């Protein structure tokens, strides 16, 4: 699991530019599933047929995209103006090392604020070491997207920090699950979705073409165990969390019970999550076609939407055990 996470968090893939992550996942799952395809939005859809004629179609969705900064303008001095792709927190962005897909490095800087001015993307720029607009635009084009450049590193014994842990750690979980999946009666469709960070866009079209009976999103959630935090009943390292509700979906109660029961059978710790903000691909799946029962299995993460999103490997390994137990029935 750790190696998978390291590989996947190293890949470049902001919303709308997930191709590199999809290529990597496709290479990891080739031969392990019955079919792999991509759709118009770039979703990678991997299907493993079930053994039972009356088996269900269960869709898992883990999103490949990460938040980023899209170049909108080059100043004549060579600095790049940017706009956010997804939920960039301004406070997490000052003096950040960023990089582009082609390997160009930059520093995200906030210019001095005028009296009465507040921080926004308009007060930020990226310095890529260019001396003129022409030089800058030879290195990077308008519409190119920068991501936080930090590499994955280990904290303590079993914890990892990286940008894009949201949601590559769940991509790693889903890859690992599909690799380990024994024949089971239900058909399992692993969707590595696109553009979740800009509004669960890929999950919507994928769910439409996959036509599942059940939808389960795999995504990170916030923790409530940090100083002066937002008082959520989620602790890092105490197991995956079964989502009861967030702002985009109310989980199907039977599905919640089924996942909690699977945790019990697998003898792993498991938490219950109520998130008073945010949403996942479950929200998009739920309202597709005639609708379906949905739930999200969450991986607790500290500092979500920063360059150092922290997860605990125990939670990921336990999430895999839970999902295997659920699919075994």
């Amino acid at each position: 699991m750790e190696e998978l996470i390291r590989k996947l968090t190293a890949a470049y893939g902001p919303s709308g530019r997930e191709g590199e992550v999809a290529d990597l996942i496709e290479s990891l799952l080739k031969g392990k599933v019955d079919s792999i395809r991509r759709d118009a939005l770039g979703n990678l859809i991997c299907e493993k047929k079930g053994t039972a004629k009356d088996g269900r179609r269960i869709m898992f969705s883990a999103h490949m995209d990460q938040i980023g900064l899209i170049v909108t303008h080059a100043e004549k001095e060579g600095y790049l103006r940017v706009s956010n792709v997804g939920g960039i927190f301004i406070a997490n962005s000052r003096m950040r090392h960023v990089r582009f897909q082609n390997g160009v490095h930059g520093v995200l800087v906030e210019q001095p604020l005028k009296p009465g001015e507040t921080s926004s993307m308009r007060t930020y720029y990226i310095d890529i070491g260019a001396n003129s607009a022409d030089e800058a635009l030879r290195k990077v084009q308008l519409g190119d997207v920068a991501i936080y450049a930090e590499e994955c590193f280990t904290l303590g014994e079993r914890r990892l920090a990286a940008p894009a842990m949201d949601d590559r750690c769940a991509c790693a979980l889903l890859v690992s699950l599909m690799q380990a999946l024994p024949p089971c009666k239900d058909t399992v469709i692993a969707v590595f979705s696109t553009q979740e960070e800009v509004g669960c866009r890929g999950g919507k079209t994928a769910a439409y073409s996959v036509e599942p009976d059940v939808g389960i999103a795999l995504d990170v959630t916030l923790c409530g165990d940090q100083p002066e935090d937002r008082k959520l009943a989620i602790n890092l390292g105490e197991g995956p969390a079964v989502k009861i509700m967030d702002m985009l979906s109310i989980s199907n109660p039977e599905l919640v019970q089924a996942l909690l029961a699977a945790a019990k059978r697998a003898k792993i710790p498991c938490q219950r999550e109520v998130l008073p903000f945010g949403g996942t691909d479950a929200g998009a799946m739920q309202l597709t076609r005639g609708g379906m029962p949905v739930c999200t299995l969450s991986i607790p993460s500290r500092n979500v939407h920063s360059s150092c999103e922290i997860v605990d490997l125990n939670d990921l390994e336990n999430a895999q055990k839970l999902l295997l137990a659920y699919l075994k029935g």
Partner: protein
Amino acid sequence: MDLKTLCEAQGLSGREEKIRRMALDACVKAFGQSAVTLDGLGSVIARRKGANSAKPTVMLAAHMDEVGLMVISATEEGLLRFRAIGGVDARVLVSKRVRVGYEAEGKPSLPGVIGALAIHLQTAEDRKTVLPIEQLYIDIGAKDKAEAERLAPAGTLVTFDTPYTPFGDGCVLAKAFDDRVGVYNLLRLLDAPYDGDLVFAFTSQEEAGCRGAVSAGYSVQPDIALILECTSANDLGETPEALQVCRVGQGVCVSFMDNASIGDAELYRALLATGEAQGIPHQIKQFVSGGNDAGSIQRSGAGSRTLALSVPCRNIHSPACVCSVRDIDSQEALTRAYLQSL
């Protein structure tokens, strides 16, 4: 169909019948009755079958509706209260001429003007505040409430009253460029050379939240959709270059992202390359703002690869929008050239 007729025609969201008639007639004439459908939300969808089924199905879309106003009631004095249909800035409304009601055979629309307190009567404080739409009224010269209600009952639609006026260096001033320029170019593209399936969608209710495109996108489900739009140019006065979005007269805008969709990365590159190769004036939309039918079409059904090509427009959504004829022509030329390159 000429641009003057299209811009001067009245067509607010949900009431696009005049534009729809023109689009329907042109499409039926070009492809025959059986190729043209009118969907439940009032969008016109014309399918031109191509001989080569290996080629992607391409959808070209433009919205028929414009922003404007709707009467909600009358005052005791016979003035009309109103609300906006679509995004209208209250600051552009005071003292503007409007046409109340749609004109019909033998029945012209009523002239009206949006009134406010005369400058002589304003206090220093009044001059600092912008009157919200709730405090503006349309004067149609009615003698009392009863007459106003008879002439313009609640629900009556109101459009800006602006004659189409060419001026300056290839510029034009009119209402409703957003998105009659797209409709105009779609009609010019009915004969575009392409041997795959080509679908023309004249959508409804974009200004009310990209609604018509949801059902149009669903029924067409194209492989590729190009959205021919009109977008805000902020290139006047002291605006720093980084905030100008795009510039009138410098070519059609290719979009990498707005608030409703991220342009398909491959299409974005392909359209820029086509513009480059063919020497068609084009520019990149340099700001992330607004949204259009691309978002709805991209995510209808199993999804489509989408990109917006927009004509830059000053004072967009106002009674006096300004576009350049060269930009309008380059939107058509770039779309045509891209189809040829497929």
